[in-house]
Every structure is written in structure tokens, then in C-alpha cells.
């Protein structure tokens, strides 16, 4: 039963925050008038508030699950769609779509973003496998450099063809443009995550290494690149609708793994829930701080995310890779002291 405590707490938190978020915004919407059948309020509710909430939930769950899978597949805790060039590749794809098909629909751009995110991620992983770095920190560093090169190409092309304005809304993630009719692509995250659940054990086994996978009869490269494709597609669906959302794929899986270990089957639900809570909370902060204006989510996440990340690093420095155990320390593991839940909830 203890296994499910965390999941239950996260679910309830998410539910409460979701309901709250529906009533935060420039135009006040309240439950009483909705119940009274106020037409105007219902319209705002259905066209803007609800789509925004759904987009946030898809983004939070999607990006954190994508990060989780990517970290497992690359056997590196610091790899994520941000530090693995996936996001910047998707952005380049969107720019190419804007250049070659100026009248493209959201779906047209999405196809470009999918293709280039998949290719970019594959190249990155192929490269790190080829070099096989001894030092774990090298991998995300190479990823960040690779991402910056792609970002540089994107910026150059954007300046060259005067596209900077058009592109800017995909560079900094924000939810203010999410409205009925122009965000539905983000729902693609749902079937992709179901796929991730189905193949969770495969990803885990691949994360244990090539020899380990072969021994268990798992086709290492097939699963590796299929998994990366799922990651890239999830990321691209989010980037097309919301823009770049960094940190989540990096931090959320790491925080959850500290409590629950690395077995994907055991952590997937919590990772998704925590990711959704994190994004939702950040978005609500962004909406409230300078109301009636709002801060882009990327900014809020950047600040809170980096604080969380530093805390994570400090914890690692102090305690090594020791897992956080919430239950009282048994005599058998007297060295695991009761930890404070530092920065668990935002």
C-alpha cells in the first residue's frame, strides 16, 4: 500500500491545482455564474481556460516522461530533450516549415518538427554511442553544444530571412496562445505515452546496457531508436504548440527517481503526475505575479527549475546516490536517515 501513497498524494494535489487554475485569469470566472448558466463565462471557460489546462497537463506529463525515457535509454541522468538537442531540432524544423511552406498549417509545421526532432535526437545519440564518453557529464555537455549549434543555424536562417519575429513564439515557451482550435496537436502526447507504458520494461532493459539486453533477447538498437523516436515526437508535439519548455525533462525524472528508483513501470505514473503539477504550478505563478499581464512559463520554470536543480546537485554531493526513503529507517538500513522533503512540492 505504501507504494501508492506518493501517487495518491500527487493525484490529489494535481486535481486541486487543476480546478484552481481554471478560475485564475484576467477575466474572472467563478463557479457560481457558471452554474447559473452565464453564457460569456462558459465561452471563456471552454475556449481558453479548459484548453489551457489540458495543454499544460499534456506538456507536463509529456516532457517529464520524455525526459525519463531519454535518461534511461542514454544511461545518463543528465540527458533530457533540452540537453539532448531534441528541442532545438524541433525548433529548426518549425523554421524550415515557415521558410518552405509559408502557408503551412499547424499540422504541416508539426510534421517538419517531428522529422527534424527525430533526426536530431538520433544523430546526437549515435554520436555519443560512437564516442562512448567515460565521464557522465560529457554527454549532456556535448548535447548542449550540439543543441547550440542547431540553435545557431536556426537563428542565422531566421535573421537571414527575417523570420525572427515569427519564430520567437516557439523559442520561449508560453501558454497564453493556447486556445480551442490551435493546440490539439499536443494531445498526441497521450497515445505516445501509452506506447511508453507498454514498452516500459524494454526501455529499462536497454538502459542496463547492450550486453544485458542481448542476453534477455531484446533488440538493443531497435528499442533504443524506437524509444528515441517516441521521445522526439512527444517533445515536438509540445514545442509546436507551446514552444520550448526546458528543465522539466531533466529535473522531474531525477526528483522522482530519488524516491522511487529507476524501474520505469514503478516511476512512470509519479513522474507524469509530478511533471504536470510542476508545469501547472509554474503557469499559475506566471499568471498571478504580474497580473493582469503574465510571464511566459519558460521564465518561471527557468527560475524554479534552476533552484531545484541546484538543490538536487547539493543533495547528491552530500548523500551520493543514496535513495531517499520516506518510510522510517529500519535497523537493516540504519544509514538511511529520515530526510526532509526538500523542495518536493512547488
Amino acid at each position, binding site marked *: 500500500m505504501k507504494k501508492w501513497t506518493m501517487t495518491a498524494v500527487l493525484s490529489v494535489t494535481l486535481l486541486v491545482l487543476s480546478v484552481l487554475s481554471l478560475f485564475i485569469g484576467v477575466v474572472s470566472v467563478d463557479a457560481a455564474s457558471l452554474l447559473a448558466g452565464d453564457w460569456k463565462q462558459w465561452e471563456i471557460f471552454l475556449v481558453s481556460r479548459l484548453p489551457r489546462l489540458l495543454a499544460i497537463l499534456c506538456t507536463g506529463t509529456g516532457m517529464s516522461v520524455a525526459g525519463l525515457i531519454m535518461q534511461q535509454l542514454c544511461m545518463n541522468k543528465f540527458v533530457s530533450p533540452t540537453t539532448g538537442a531534441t528541442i532545438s531540432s524541433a525548433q529548426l524544423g518549425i523554421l524550415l516549415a515557415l521558410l518552405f511552406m509559408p502557408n503551412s498549417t499547424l499540422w504541416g509545421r508539426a510534421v517538419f518538427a517531428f522529422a527534424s526532432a527525430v533526426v536530431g535526437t538520433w544523430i546526437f545519440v549515435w554520436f555519443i554511442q560512437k564516442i562512448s564518453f567515460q565521464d557522465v557529464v560529457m554527454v549532456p555537455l556535448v548535447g548542449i553544444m550540439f543543441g547550440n549549434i542547431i540553435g545557431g543555424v536556426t537563428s542565422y536562417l531566421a535573421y537571414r530571412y527575417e523570420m525572427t519575429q515569427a519564430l520567437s513564439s516557439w523559442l520561449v515557451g508560453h501558454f497564453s496562445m493556447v486556445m480551442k482550435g490551435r493546440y490539439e496537436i499536443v494531445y498526441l502526447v497521450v497515445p505516445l505515452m501509452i506506447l511508453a507504458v507498454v514498452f516500459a520494461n524494454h526501455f529499462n*532493459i536497454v538502459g*542496463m546496457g*547492450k550486453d*544485458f539486453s542481448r542476453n*534477455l*533477447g531484446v533488440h538493443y538498437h531497435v528499442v533504443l531508436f524506437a524509444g528515441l523516436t517516441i521521445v522526439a515526437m512527444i517533445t515536438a508535439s509540445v514545442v509546436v504548440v507551446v514552444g520550448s519548455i526546458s528543465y522539466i525533462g531533466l529535473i522531474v525524472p531525477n526528483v522522482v527517481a530519488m524516491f522511487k528508483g529507476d524501474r520505469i513501470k514503478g516511476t512512470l505514473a509519479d513522474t507524469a503526475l509530478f511533471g504536470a503539477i510542476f508545469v501547472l504550478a509554474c503557469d499559475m505563478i506566471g499568471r498571478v505575479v504580474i497580473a493582469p499581464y503574465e510571464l511566459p512559463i519558460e521564465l518561471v520554470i527557468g527560475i524554479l527549475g534552476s533552484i531545484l536543480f541546484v538543490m538536487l546537485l547539493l543533495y547528491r554531493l552530500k548523500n551520493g546516490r543514496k*535513495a531517499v526513503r520516506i518510510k522510517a529507517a529500519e535497523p537493516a538500513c540504519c544509514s538511511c536517515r529520515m530526510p526532509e522533503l526538500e523542495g518536493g512540492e512547488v
Partner: protein
Amino acid sequence: MIIKGLTKNYDGKKVVDDISFEIPRGKVTALIGPNGAGKSTVMGMISRLIGRTEGTVEFMGKDIREWKSRELSRKLAILTQSNHTQMKLTVRELVAFGRFPYSGSRLTPEDEKMVDQAIGYMELEEFQDRFIDELSGGQRQRAYIAMVIAQDTEYVLLDEPTNNLDIYHAINMMKTARRLCDDLGKTVVLVLHDINYAAFYCDYICAMADGKIARFGPVDEVITKENLSEIYRVDFEILEVQGKPLSIYY
């Protein structure tokens, strides 16, 4: 398992050169030899982890390459040294992966029973909910062996299982290998560095040097002063302890 003309080239250099022998079924066989003799490469080739340049590896009537990967993983398990993972898995979760070739992601009650048995066999009950990266080297090695036991294969291949273990754990590892053969009827093949472990706990020894088989046969035939001096190019003395040849080198 019948190995014929097995050869491996790396960049034009022959690491393993035209090796032929047959692994005796239901026995413990050790591959020994100096560094760079090609022991681990042979191990990799006969377990389909690495490709070969030439030759055949016939396993239960079929070449190992023609086996479906999943079917093969129910007949043959290989544990390499590269299993030092960063992943936080509990011992039980790791052992449960051994059932993957049978049930995929969904464990049946019977799988759970096999996992329990494997954990019990390796005396890991008290550790089963601990994370493997928090265990000592010896405990972790036992957890991996438990996974191989849960995999329930007739052939078990272990690449340098005593590496990085102290004498106590190394000897226990060798005793476990012996039990896998005697109690569970498995065919065990090990790559070993220590000649005495091979001499005391194995039935057959395949001694390699420079990519070739120097000697192959029952322990008594291979472990002789002349053979070992030739293979390792140092002076050997062989004593008899408990009816087994104990080699001393200096």
C-alpha cells in the same frame, strides 16, 4: 555446443584464430589464459554478443546466429563484466528481468515463484528490496547470478565472475558455479584469471594463448607444470591438495 574454426579479426589483426572445440554438456568449463589471449572474445562470440569473422558455433543443432534472440535467451544466459549500472533497481526488480524472455513485461504468478526461488537460492531475501547500487560488490554479483537463475537457461556463461571480488566472495562465486552445475544440471562456462579457481571448481579447462587453444581437456590433463609454463611463460610448480592440482607460480 560445438565450435568450429572460430576466428575474429579486429582491424586485420587476428584476435581469435581458428578455434575448434566442444563444450561438454552438464559440466563446468573454464577458459583461462594470459591477457589478450582472446578468452572474452571467444565468450562474446559463442554467446552472440559479438559477431565473428569466420567459423561456426553450433548450439543445440542450430548455428547460434539462426536462433531467434528471444528463444535463445531461454536456453543460454551470458553475464559480462560490463554490468556496472547506474540504474537504481532493487534486487527483486533486477532478478525479475530474468523472466523477460518468457513473459515479457507481464509477470505471471509462476514467474514470481521463479523469482522467489532464485532470490532464495542466492540467499538474497533480506536484500531483495535494496537498490543494487547500494550493495557491496559481492552482493551485487549474487543479485546478477540470481537473475541468470531466474532466466532458467540450460547454459550459463560467466565472463570473469570473480573480478573485483575478495577471496571470500570469489570462492563463494565458484561454489555457486559448481552448484549451478551439480544441483541444477546446468552447463557452465567461465572466463577465469585464477588458475587455481579453475583447477578446484571446474571439470574441463580450455587454456588459450595468442588467440589459439593451447590445451583443452579435463583439469588434470591441462594443469601440468609443462603446459602452464609454456602458456604463461613463467615458472610453475604443481602441488596436490585434496586430490586437485594446485599451481604455484613465481
